[in-house]
């Protein structure tokens, strides 16, 4: 197995034309995903995380708005002819969407939706596909799979539908699974089941996974690396443990502080982030978080931060990163002690 990352995103931009101007949904994002690893992408709504996932899949309408490179096993998905991309979809890269109710075909039985991919990509016979579908449903924890195969999506609960979605995504044993807010529509106990399931299949299949969520906590315990996005830009990325134990970007730090936890002290005021997202059609120069940041100064807008390495396996785009106890800032340079 090569050590080359499965996915290399280089300077990805996704601009969307709207009546109010061009929305810079993803603006110059670069990241790598290693084989067998799980990458969490977190950000609030409008951060561009979902658009990025779609851009990586090549699902953006009229690809004209996307530039940069998305190298999947060495091939640039952005320039690949449509026919070859279609070969990759489902077979090598699969996606799980937020709303399982809407992403399953309502008038097609579960069995056909599950087996469609493997019949097309792997050319297996109908009987074999049936057997595999049963195994898949078993694997994702759907009870009574034989009966469920004959069901229509509306006959299943939300959690069951998401399990079917995941089984469908796994049908061709993809190299990369992109899960875009896979549990947002689900209740907390079911969300728990689905998150455990995703992590389990990702590990047992040696699959790479991108787990996208607005909820930091969803990504925290279940990924190897985490990337934090804000207003179309990458704010911070690194080993998940690093990012959560010692967030360096002011935005990540503030976001973690603002997340209510189950051990929150009663009536204690929440730490908050004042202000709101910048206008996506005319983002401010430099750091896009500067206007809401209590540590911003003139340099944050001009020239603005670059993504720099900080500590081991940790990158941040911030001119006055949160200090850890073992480091101090001298003249803008970070010096490890």
């Amino acid at each position: 197995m090569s050590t080359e990352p499965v996915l290399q995103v280089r300077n990805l931009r996704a601009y969307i034309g709207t009546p109010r101007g061009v929305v810079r949904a993803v603006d110059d994002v670069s990241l790598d995903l290693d084989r067998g690893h799980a990458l969490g992408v977190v950000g609030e709504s409008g951060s561009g995380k979902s658009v990025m996932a779609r851009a990586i899949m090549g699902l953006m309408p009229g690809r004209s708005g996307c530039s940069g490179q998305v190298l999947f096993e060495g091939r640039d998905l952005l320039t690949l002819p449509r026919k070859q991309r279609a070969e990759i979809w489902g077979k090598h890269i699969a996606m799980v969407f937020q709303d399982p109710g809407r992403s399953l075909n309502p008038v097609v039985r579960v069995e056909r939706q599950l087996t469609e991919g493997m019949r097309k990509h792997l050319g297996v016979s109908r009987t074999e596909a049936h057997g595999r579908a049963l195994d898949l449903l078993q694997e994702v924890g759907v009870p009574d799979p034989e009966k469920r195969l004959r069901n229509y999506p509306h006959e299943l609960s939300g959690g069951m539908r998401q399990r079917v979605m995941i089984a469908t995504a796994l049908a061709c044993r993809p190299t990369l699974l992109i899960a875009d807010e896979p549990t947002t529509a689900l209740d907390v106990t079911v969300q728990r089941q689905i998150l455990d399931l995703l992590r389990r299949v990702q590990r047992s299949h040696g699959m790479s996974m991108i787990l996208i969520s607005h909820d930091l906590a969803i990504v925290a315990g279940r990924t190897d690396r985490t990337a934090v996005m804000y207003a179309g830009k990458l704010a911070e990325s690194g080993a998940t443990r690093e990012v959560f134990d010692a967030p360096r970007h002011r935005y990540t730090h503030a976001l973690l502080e603002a997340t209510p936890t189950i051990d929150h002290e009663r009536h204690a005021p929440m730490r908050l982030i004042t202000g709101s997202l910048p206008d996506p059609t005319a983002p401010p120069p430099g750091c896009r978080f500067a206007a809401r940041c209590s540590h911003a100064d003139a340099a944050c807008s001009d020239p603005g931060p670059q993504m720099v390495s900080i500590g081991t396996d940790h990158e941040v785009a911030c001119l006055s990163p949160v200090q850890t106890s073992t480091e101090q800032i001298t003249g803008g340079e970070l010096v490890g002690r």
Partner: protein
Amino acid sequence: MAGSGTAHLRGEEALLSVRDLVVEYPTKGGVVQAVSKVSFDVLPGETLGIVGESGCGKSTTGRAVLRLDRLTAGQIDFAGERIDEASGKRMRELRRSIQMIFQDPVASLNPRRSVKDIVVEGLAVTGAPAAERASTSSSILEQVGLGSERFADMMPRQLSGGQAQRVAIGRALALHPQLLICDEPVSALDVSVQAQILNLIEELKAQFNLTVVFIAHDLGVVRAVSDDVLVMYLGKVCEFGDADMVYDQPAHPYTRALLDSVPLTDAERGFTGPALEGDLPSPLSPPTGCRFRTRCPRAEERCAAEEPEIQEIRPGQYAACHFPLSLGATVTLAPAAEEPAAESTPETTSETEAAAVPAAAAEPAATVEPAATIEARTDPVAVPAALEKPAPTDESAAGAKSAPLEKPAPAEKPAPAEKPSPAEKPAPVEEPVPAAKSVPAEAAVPAAAVATAAVVEKSESAGEAAAATTSEPAASAEDVVPAEDVVPAAPAATAEAAKPAAAAAEPVKSEPAKSDI
């Protein structure tokens, strides 16, 4: 879970008391009992948090208090007055004292009116003169953080979610209500905005002397704002008590499971405990006895046969469960929680997924404490059983017994770590619970009521029409899909709740306004 009963009620001094509330919806598949014999009290000045998953009836309960949904049975008293049988006319007056804010902030605002008008629609209904409305409008907008001139003339669609929720809060407060019901007020908002809104609600609560019922599915959010917490499952009350006690020492297995399912912002530990099996049963044919028993790791035959009554587990904490978690039992669950803490979570659960339900609970316990007790080894199932002791009186014994069990385990959770003293029973939580509840004794009442009473006559005819067309029949028609919290129904009803007459009277007037969009 299936709790009915009244052990947890606080009696006379409550501002709002709900007794045996039942709300049913007819559906094609039969009658769904969305809320089934739920009782609770809210003391003046306190915040009651209602948590539960979708379909547990928490929103329906909130809406029933405002009589936005028709009650099937039960009694609701507000400030000493029975509102479950109040007339439509009286209800419209009462809704000035009981206001509500809804989940979808943009949809709950009239799309054709400007922010400054929306905020005082309630006052317009009461017939307040234009000058008074204008001044109230600007002062309220100031108070909800939208003081800037530019907001006053904006239309709802130009607002962000957070700004729209501020307008909705302003609209509710313009009438100086006594009780504010917040139905998932922040679940549609981003984390950074959510914190702003929660802080705003807390500030205004103090400023306006509000009593709050805060309905949400997010346990972290509820913890941050609540004095007491009511946990619901499938239309029933599971647990009620002081928020700190319920969160730190849950007595009901469902509460425990809910808390264990909350993802942590901690890279080391994904969750605090094992996952809950299975799905919510169909509300059309809820399980007999305790409604949670189909997913409960502690369920036994008795749970199917007999519905548990709410009983006091510890002073100030009540649960409807035949086998509540005692303090000792909580400890045995805690080590199980530590196992998956290492990255092994998925594997662990994968095994338990296949295993029979009771075994799932017993197994981790056995692995964690092999050295601790011999009984634990020889008969793992016996351990939880022995510690179960439903009767609160046995608790000190259970606690004493479990203390040695707990020692060897790394004290990971701060809460259980403080507890091991065998004398824990009388004072498990140092906090003076009753004191917290006594709150501002003088319920700030009358000003609004008096003011509104004077103008009732005026608004009557218009209000009648609006209320008749919208609040009652609309609600029942749309709510045919009940178990979910029916979102579309909410906005329509909001408009009505806040300003019955306005909706009927205004559309004609606002038609031309539309053209300047």
